[in-house]
């Protein structure tokens, strides 16, 4: 369905593009031909207005000139003048017109990007002169001044327009040159001729001749200028007339030059025939009139040119319209064809749709049940996750405490190592003192040797005493005194022997004790030194293991933090999961409801299909092809509000599309949720 719908929209869009094409082309060509945002009508209007005003002004000037001061001789000329009726009111209206037209021209037509040479006021001097004229007595002099001012203003306005400006075409400039020639330059000659005819008694003075000559030169220059715009008149139908008039003007100028040649060569004024003067005058006036006609022709051709461009544009546009119509018809045909294809597929799909809707309702019911189970499981998981999170935070606290304790114990172990090293030094000192003790032992042994000498003496004196006693006993009564001495010696010997024995025993005891002490202390010192070394090693091992424990504690802390964040993420994921499961549940319930409605829709879809066939083909009997006729019994038409025209089809198709879009969107949502659910599950597993 999707693919056909896309192509259909593209086709509709194409139709829109086809219809938009001629509109765009029309607008584009209009803007191009209209002279770069410049309104045709405005330019045209201004041109005609200027022409009208200048001609009127000219006539008015003549009227002024020949009405007041030159009453006697004006009659002749008046009869020759164009019959223009002028009144004071008329001239006011003309001025107003001119002023308005100029204002329009300068404010509206001249775009902002072109510097406005006319300033704020389109004709600044004229408006001042106009005010003066209104205030004054409206004499002929005032009017003459006004006219001259106006002419000057217009001249300036034209000259100040840059020639490269987009606003003014060459055509327009040529027209203006022609206007200038016909209305301002040429009359100068007739004025001079008239002046010499009336004032100088048909005498042409040298000054006049010079004036006329300069005017002729001016005319020549203007003709040249006009001819420089020749290229603008390539497609002009009045080319012959124009060429004729230009040559006529040139001839006139040549004739006049020849006429005034003697005046210029001689020093005095020469008389001229009044008839020849009149002829020149008439010729000039006629020439002016003819040139005015040419101007009119110019303007007409300009207008016709504009109109021909418009017609060209219109023709192109209408051609494009026709092409667009043709193309859109083609596209519509293709759309109708695709609708036929859709119909065929639709009838196939309808068959499947019946089965699918049944299956869908079954699956939706089971999905709803499983979603409920999932929701319960997810809530349990969320609860256990929060427990886990709290446990983890407790672990993190414990880990921090452990870290602090480990740091303290590290410091303590370092202190212990330093203490034990001190102890080792003390042990070395003790070993040294033990060696000193061994020296004491030697001293004691020396004492023991001396004591043996005493013992020997004691033994000998004992023996001596015994022998003395024996001698005393032998001496009998006389030896009694000697016996006492012997006894005393014996006593002394026994006392000293006793003391020596005590000394010996003491020395032996002390020697033994010293020896045992030395031996024990050396043993103790050795074992103490060994133990000190061992304990230093042990303390270093402890310090190392404390460092390890510290690192481990850090790792535990970090791991706990990471776990905590992971758990947080998991809990976020779980809450998302929970939401999605709930949404899923809701969706599955919706799906159940919608599957029912699909069932209903499928039923009505078959009726809609029939309606569609009817609306597309206009009749129920016409079968699209075998498939359509096979799947639809058109005689069993439902009592639906079908009119026997095609209009019903569009809303039916719309509702069908709406329904199908709704189903598709729901299905895609469901699919997305399932995908999210799977992802969350995966995340949860990873986090766990």
């Amino acid at each position, binding site marked *: 369905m999707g693919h056909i719908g896309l192509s259909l929209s593209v086709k509709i869009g194409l139709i829109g593009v086809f219809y938009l094409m001629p509109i765009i082309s029309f607008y584009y060509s209009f803007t191009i031909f209209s002279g770069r945002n410049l309104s045709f009508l405005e330019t045209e209007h201004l041109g005609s207005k200027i022409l009208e005003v200048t001609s009127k002004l000219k006539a008015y000037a003549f009227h002024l000139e020949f009405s007041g001061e030159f009453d006697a001789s004006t009659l002749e000329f008046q009869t020759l003048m164009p019959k223009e009726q002028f009144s004071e009111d008329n001239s006011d209206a003309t001025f107003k017109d001119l002023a308005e037209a100029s204002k329009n021209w300068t404010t509206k037509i001249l775009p902002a990007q072109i510097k406005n040479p006319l300033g704020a006021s389109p004709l600044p001097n004229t408006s001042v002169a106009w005010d003066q004229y209104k205030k004054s007595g409206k004499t002929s002099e005032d009017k003459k001044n006004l006219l001259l001012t106006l002419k000057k203003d217009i001249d300036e306005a034209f000259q100040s327009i840059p020639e490269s400006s987009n606003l003014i075409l060459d055509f327009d400039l040529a027209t203006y040159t022609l206007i200038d020639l016909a209305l301002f330059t040429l009359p100068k000659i007739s004025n001079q001729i008239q002046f010499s005819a009336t004032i100088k008694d048909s005498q042409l003075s040298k000054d006049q001749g010079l004036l006329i000559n300069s005017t002729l030169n001016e005319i020549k220059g203007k003709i040249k200028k006009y001819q420089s715009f020749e290229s603008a008149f390539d497609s002009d139908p009045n080319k012959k007339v124009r060429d004729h008039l230009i040559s006529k003007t040139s001839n006139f100028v040549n004739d006049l030059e020849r006429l005034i040649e003697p005046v210029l060569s001689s020093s005095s004024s020469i008389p001229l025939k009044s008839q020849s003067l009149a002829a020149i005058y008439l010729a000039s006036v006629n020439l002016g009139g003819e040139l005015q006609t040419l101007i009119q022709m110019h303007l007409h051709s300009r207008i016709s040119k504009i109109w021909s461009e418009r017609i060209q544009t219109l023709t192109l546009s209408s051609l494009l319209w026709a092409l667009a119509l043709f193309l859109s018809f083609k596209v519509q045909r293709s759309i109708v064809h695709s609708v036929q294809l859709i119909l065929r597929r639709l009838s196939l799909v309808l068959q499947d749709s019946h089965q699918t809707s049944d299956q869908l309702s079954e699956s939706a019911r089971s999905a709803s049940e499983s979603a409920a189970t999932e929701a319960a499981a997810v809530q349990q998981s969320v609860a256990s996750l929060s427990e886990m999170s709290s446990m983890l935070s407790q672990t993190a606290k414990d880990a921090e405490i452990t870290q602090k304790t480990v740091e303290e114990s590290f410091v303590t172990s370092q202190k212990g190592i330093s203490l034990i090293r001190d102890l080792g030094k003390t042990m070395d000192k003790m070993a040294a003192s033990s060696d000193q003790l061994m020296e004491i032992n030697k001293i004691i042994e020396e004492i023991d040797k001396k004591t043996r000498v005493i013992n020997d003496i004691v033994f000998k004196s004992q*023996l001596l005493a015994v022998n003395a006693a024996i001698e005393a006993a032998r001496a009998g009564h006389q030896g009694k005194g000697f016996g006492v001495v012997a006894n005393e010696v*014996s006593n002394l010997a026994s006392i000293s022997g*006793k003391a020596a024995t005590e000394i010996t025993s003491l020395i032996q005891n002390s020697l033994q004790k010293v020896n045992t002490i030395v031996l024990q202390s050396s043993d103790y010192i050795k074992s103490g030194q060994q133990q000190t070394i061992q304990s230093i090693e042990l303390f270093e091992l402890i310090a190392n293991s404390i460092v390890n424990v510290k690192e481990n504690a850090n790792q535990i802390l970090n791991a706990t933090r990471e776990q905590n964040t992971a758990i947080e993420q998991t809990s976020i994921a779980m809450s998302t999961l929970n939401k999605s499961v709930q949404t899923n549940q809701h969706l599955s319930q919706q799906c159940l409801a919608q599957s029912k409605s699909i069932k209903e829709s499928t039923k009505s879809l078959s009726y809609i299909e029939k309606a569609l066939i009817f609306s597309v083909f206009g009749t129920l009997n016409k079968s699209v092809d075998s498939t359509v006729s096979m799947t639809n019994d058109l005689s069993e038409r439902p009592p639906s509000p079908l009119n026997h025209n095609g209009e019903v089809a569009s809303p039916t198709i719309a509702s069908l599309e709406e329904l199908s879009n709704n189903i598709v969107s729901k299905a895609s949502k469901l699919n997305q949720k399932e995908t999210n659910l799977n992802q969350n599950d995966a995340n949860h597993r990873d986090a766990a």
Partner: protein
Amino acid sequence: MSTEIHDEKSNSSTGAMLETTDPYLFFNLGLEIFGVKLAAIREVVEPQPFKTVPNTIPSFVGICNLRGQIIGLLDFRIHFGIKNPNHLGIYMIFENEHGAFGAIIDQIVCVDSLKETEIDRKNAAPQAVIPPQYIDGVVQYKEQLVILIDIKAIFSKEELTSIAHSKMMARAV
């Protein structure tokens, strides 16, 4: 090793001459204390270097030169079966008609006078260590029974030869 030489003045001061006292030398052989009449002893000397004489009884350890006089040495400790013969001991020198003899004892205990009444001459030799012909008597001295040895009997020629003879006979058998 206490040596006491009691004066006989106490006995004489009583004035009763009925109880005669004689000085005795008490000495150790091992743990036993024996006594010898002081009058029988010529002198006591410290141990001298001696030379063994072959073919004699084991107690006759040899002869030595004491101030130019050759003296036979009899070890009482061996003679009376007391074990501890390694000790150098003290030489008691006796003299009789056959010459001077030395007896090796362990230690001198003391010199003391004994009353004749204290000495039991009849119940001789309760121990079988010393033959009865050598015992002069037994006395209770300082809570101990002390055998008084008859030196003359031991060093008589008959006795010496008989001993040697009996020993030789015993060895021959």
